């Protein structure tokens, strides 16, 4: 459903991505792994068109979205849960969820409220804090809120940037379980993760990025068994 071809992104003189190509099929979980500065976040930002592409194309369902405004891309059904939990700190938890659907004028108030309640079933902790401001939540709760906000869109493709960053292991586990549930509901997921072991275990396929280039690709299991991946990212 999503295809990235020969993507190049430069930050000034620094080449963040050189010639990255990848493909995501309907209802897959794809993961990008790689060290710091390998270009994982840049890839997602380029898909969302939050950074300028030097060259390369991104197509979604055969439609070229390389130069489309970020908000239009969201309305096509691509939700991006950014790294560092860009939630709205001064809006309440509930408002943060509501704003996830703000650009979709077609859905009714009732439908929106149903979705909010749905999120509260998945994340009961958010329900307890529905009136609190986003900034008052703990790191784990903020991450849940960011994911929930992405899910409010009912996107076709959910892109998640380091959802486990700085979280307690038990919450990380919850989030990964959630991902498998989300996949069952028919969504496609593009996941960036520093915890390569966890990511490759849930992923159908994975890409390994190094210095802005894709150096390896394969199914999750193949990559887990790959001696180079083991040495560099799994620490075995």
């Amino acid at each position: 459903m999503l295809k990235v071809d020969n993507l190049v992104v430069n930050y000034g003189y620094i080449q963040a991505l050189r010639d990255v190509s990848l493909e995501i099929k309907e209802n897959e979980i794809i993961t990008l792994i790689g060290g710091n500065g390998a270009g994982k976040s840049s890839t997602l930002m380029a898909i969302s068109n939050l950074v300028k592409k030097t060259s390369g194309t991104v197509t979604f369902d055969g439609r070229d979205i390389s130069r489309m405004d970020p908000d239009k891309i969201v309305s096509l059904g691509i939700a991006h849960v950014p790294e560092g939990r860009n939630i709205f700190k001064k809006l309440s938890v509930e408002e943060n969820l509501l704003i996830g659907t703000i650009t979709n004028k077609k859905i009714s108030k009732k439908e929106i409220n149903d979705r909010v309640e749905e999120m509260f079933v998945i994340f009961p902790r958010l329900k307890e804090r529905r009136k609190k401001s986003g900034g008052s939540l703990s790191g784990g709760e903020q991450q849940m809120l960011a994911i929930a906000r992405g899910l409010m869109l009912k996107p076709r493709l959910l892109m998640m940037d380091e959802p486990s960053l700085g979280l307690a292991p038990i919450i990380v586990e919850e989030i990964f379980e959630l991902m498998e549930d989300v996949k069952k509901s028919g969504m496609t997921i593009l996941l960036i993760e520093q915890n390569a072991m966890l990511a490759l275990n849930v992923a159908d396929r994975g890409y390994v990025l190094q210095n802005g280039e894709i150096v390896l690709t394969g199914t999750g299991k193949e990559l887990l068994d790959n001696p180079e991946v083991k040495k560099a990212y799994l620490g075995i």
Partner: protein
Amino acid sequence: MYLLEQLINGICQGSIYALMAIGYAVIYGVVGLVTFTYGEIIMMGSFSAFYYFILFGDNLFFALIAGFITAAVVGIVVHKVCYQRFLDAPRYISLICTIGMSMFLKNFATIVFGSEMKGMPAFFAGKFIEIGTIRVGYMQLLIIGVVIALSLVLTIYLKKTRMGMKLRAVSQDKKAAALVGINVKTTTLIGNCIGCGLGGVAGILLGVYYNSVLPTMGGMAGLKAFSSMVLGGLGSISGAAIGGVLIGVVENLGIALTSSGLRDVFAFLLLVLVLVIRPQGLFGKKGN
């Protein structure tokens, strides 16, 4: 009694400052940048009312609407010239561009409208209500009423409407706003227009309160708006409103006790004092 009357004068003048500061805070929020053109926006609003009175007669209500629209249109021009072209450039370029825009508008106004002071019609001249021995002018009540009404409308707009929520989201985090599908460019433009419109209305109130308009009136007005916003805490709308009233009251009580030439001294002395003690402003949060 004299001081009490000065207090009322201060609240009235302060509410004009408050409206200017609220508009400024809205702009600062969505654009994420201080603007130096705001004083000239206030002046343009004031002049639009001046010409409205000449062309269509002395209807204050419609003049306020005309002022809002004129200032919002000037806001669009400022946005197109100063912000939109430099979205990816370093922020100081937009900042310097607003300084240039301010000079241009001031001189444009001087050439087109003339450099001499112009008189505004007097509304409710000599009419006042007496509470005990204190007199409160109709005009003063009207000004305070208009400011309170507009503040309420703005609050409801920001809290209850779809667009209001978008504006708040863009003010807090532009990247996150884009990621939930908000068109950041259009939202910023609309926020800028609303902020400028409020500034235009404040300019008219200033003009009718002092019965005069002047192409160079924007300089001090813009500075007072900025000071009020900083005093309340950058970007906080309620803070800006309280900062404005506070500056108005301190100014008027200050000149009541000394001489009227020291008006601006009191305003800025208050600002400096508060910033020395609370650098984040009265209602600002640390580290913002």
